[in-house]
């Protein structure tokens, strides 16, 4: 699978995503500068984390006007897989590709720590290779990761199986204590209706090798490569 790793001014997890897919997973990948207008030749796109445009105005709000974003819209319509991580999730929400809003963490502070994710199902190429009976350990690092949706939208997302991951205890219990940032329904990752666009706040690319404390995140990219 050939991954496009989008780079906006202020992206800072671009190298991490590149390292995970190229050096660890051994798939193909290349950086795509935000001023470019095409994703031709790529099988999947990663919108990495960071602070695109310094988070000025609102997280992801300026990046979504970058030239590359019309190609991203097209890519999504064609059913190609797009994964937005952290700031990438925020950009996808701003671009209208995913529902909801990401507001400031309940603590009003930046939170950098390990969390556990419980996959809700295997209904997308991102999650098809995951085990729903276990949890996946990886870091979060964000100021605005508090996923906000109305009860009606939550209900709708649940009915259409759009919830990809929830924050859980290491044993897989979805509890208030396991919710790091106040997200509605402990939601850590969400899919579009067609299941080819995933946004998530935790960083699977930062959990791709045992030496950095966890390789649980690698399974996400493996799943994409295998089922994409």
């Amino acid at each position, binding site marked *: 699978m050939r991954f496009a790793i989008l780079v906006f001014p*202020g992206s*800072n*997890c671009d190298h*991490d995503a590149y390292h995970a897919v190229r050096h660890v997973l051994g798939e193909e990948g290349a950086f795509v500068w935000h001023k470019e207008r095409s994703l031709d030749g790529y099988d999947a796109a990663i919108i990495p984390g960071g602070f695109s445009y310094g988070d000025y105005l609102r997280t992801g709000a300026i990046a979504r006007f970058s030239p590359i974003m019309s190609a991203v819209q097209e890519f999504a319509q064609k059913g190609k897989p797009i994964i937005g991580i952290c700031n990438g999730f925020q950009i996808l929400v701003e671009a209208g590709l995913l529902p909801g809003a990401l507001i400031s963490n309940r603590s009003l502070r*930046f939170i*950098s720590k390990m969390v556990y994710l419980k996959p809700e199902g295997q209904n997308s190429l991102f999650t098809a290779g995951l085990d729903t009976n276990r949890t996946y350990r990886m870091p979060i*690092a964000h100021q605005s990761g508090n996923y906000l949706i109305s009860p009606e939208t939550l209900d709708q997302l649940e009915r259409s199986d759009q919830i990809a991951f929830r924050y859980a205890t290491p044993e897989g219990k979805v509890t208030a204590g396991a919710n790091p940032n106040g997200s509605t329904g402990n939601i850590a990752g969400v899919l579009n209706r067609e299941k080819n666009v995933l946004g998530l706040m935790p960083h699977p*690319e930062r959990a791709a090798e045992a030496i950095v404390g966890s390789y649980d995140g690698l399974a996400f990219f493996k799943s994409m490569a295998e089922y994409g």
Partner: protein
Amino acid sequence: MAIDNAIKEPQVDEELALEHGLSSEEYARIQDILGRKPTFTELGIFSVMWSEHCSYKSSIKVLKTLPRSGGRLLVSAGEENAGLVDVGDGWAVAFKIESHNHPSAVEPYQGAATGVGGIMRDIFTMGARPIACLDPLHFGSLDDPHNRFLLDHVVKGIADYGNCLGIPTVGGEVFISDAYAGNPIVNVMSVGVVRHDRVASAVAKGPGNPVYLVGSKTGRDGIHGATFASEELSEESESRKSNVQVGDPFSEKLLLEATLELARRPFLVGIQDMGAAGITCSSSEMAAKGEAGIRLNLDAVPLREEGMIPYEIMLSESQERMLVVIQKGFEKELKEIFDRWDLDCTPIGEVIDTGKMEVFSNGKRVAEIPCSELVLGGGAPQYTMPARRPAYLEEANHLDLDALPEPKDYNAALLKLLARPNITHKGFIFEQYDSTVRTNTVIGPGADAAVIRVKGTSKGLAVSTDGNGRYTWLNPNAGGRIAVAEAARNVVCTGAQPVAITNCLNFGNPKDPEIYYQFSEAVAGMGDACRLFNTPVTGGNVSFYNENPDGAVYPTPVVGMLGLIEDLEHTTTPGFKQEGDFIVVLGSINGELGGSEYLEMAHKLVAGEPPLINLETEMNVQGTCLEGIQQGFIHSAHDISDGGLAVCLVESLLAAPDGLGAEIHLTRRLRNDEMLFGESQSTIIITVAEDDLLPLQRIAMGDQVPCITIGRVTTSGRLQLNDLIDLDRKQLRKAYMESFGRIMGA
């Protein structure tokens, strides 16, 4: 209609020079150098370049006594923006620590943020990509809401800047004492990696080569920041917020990427970041280093505000700017790089062969000064300051333990100690820092040292910052030695060989002979330790005038230690690993309570002598520990420091898998409070499997290191020590893990 908000240039005379922080003698020398009265712009230039902050005029003679070359150093201290150390495989490490104390005292958020920005530029201006940041913080009592406010905003400033930049903040320390009320110590260390052949230099040479200003526009922020850093804080300091710069981490991120692209290009001649004293400092230092001159046209400088006069442009400390010299003929290539990142890149002058800084504005020459006269190592003044052993020491060093009762309940005493801000877990702070970005963090915050891998190699870098103001106040020389010894011990505990240090020397007013004694003795102590450990000083920063209306802060020499791990297969963390492991003391538990956290907690005393530090013993203990880790049989290692043996054991236990406990039996001819809470130096608590005890003892014997088993890792989930301590992990966890947030009111 444009508003004329230009200030009028005042008449230059001695009174104005004194207002600029220069002495009468210095003003006379300026007139000698120029052969005339300086212009207002020139007076401004001299005042910042000869300020303590830029010239090190009161400290340089003492700093020169430190070992500043040798070992793995690629450049000697002071030659470039940061130290440069060879780590093999073609890689070098650039690292440096700096203070941002005064700005943080009056505007904690921006003060701390721009401290991070400044030190990062020092690293990437050398062509090195920053890969780690550490922040040692010393603050006044957190009972005072103002100090809580300062700490909260400093942490937020560090977090917002470093997180946005995408550089992991992996360590530091937090020390709380009344001595820092109103004048917090905010130090920032950055570590970067660079290929040997891509190191950029801070030099201007080759007459005719163009000089560029790149990055942000120039405004009025931060004018006289360097001078501000060179005087005591006072009641009026709050009104000096305009001296504090404002940071923009987004611009810095763009500048970082553009600079690293530029550093790879052969047409780059030299580059220096603009920190203190902005254009003035970068241009004069680069030209002096290249034994060249520099001509600057201020009309070309992109400005943020209207009506700025030459004096303001030359002294502005607007952030996120760099001065760049390239080979003539490559202007287009340079512009392409900065256009890509949407950054200004403006030619503002050229290198000339007169050896002078010649500054023009509106076609008029507003300054003409020989560059060498401005800089450290050239014409900048150097003073030998009088020193006198402080009078307070005699009384402070006296400690009569017999007059102090032992605690009746050791369980209660330990729980109380664990909840102290100086002991308790600092997750409240470091969980606000992104510590995992760049995916190199092998050991993150909370351990003895952080470990960062160097991708593409088997190597790791261990980094730690240490400095104990209480010890240094009680015995400046010992404080200096212990700062180096503890920092070295901390990197050793992760499995690294100590390689080199950077230091940040935070002291009071150097014109006070008692303060100067503290300074020169602490440096002497550091020098002794660095020579013995073969860890030269790569550079750093001196911050004087750290005083509040009640007097000077504790003398606080902070050491940033770089350690090298050749093979990341062999690293160690503080946490106990498995049931049945033997818990072993390397070194001796001497039980000194002088200057300890316990003494201050239980008896409100900062008194006695700090713990004994024998540098030979220290070397030997570290040698045994390192060899044990490299041979693969040490399962955990954690040194005794603040809070003593009891706290060390708790920290190793709480970092262990759930359910594990520890059972300890030890006897010493000491009082129990000395044994449990004394802060013995050169002592590391390790765990090994029973079968590995013998080989460990063999190594220790060869190094003449005491090696005594004191207990075992159990499955009781409790810490049990003689008949003194019996606490379960829940109780320990509550006291140790949850106190800092509660103290901060979060």
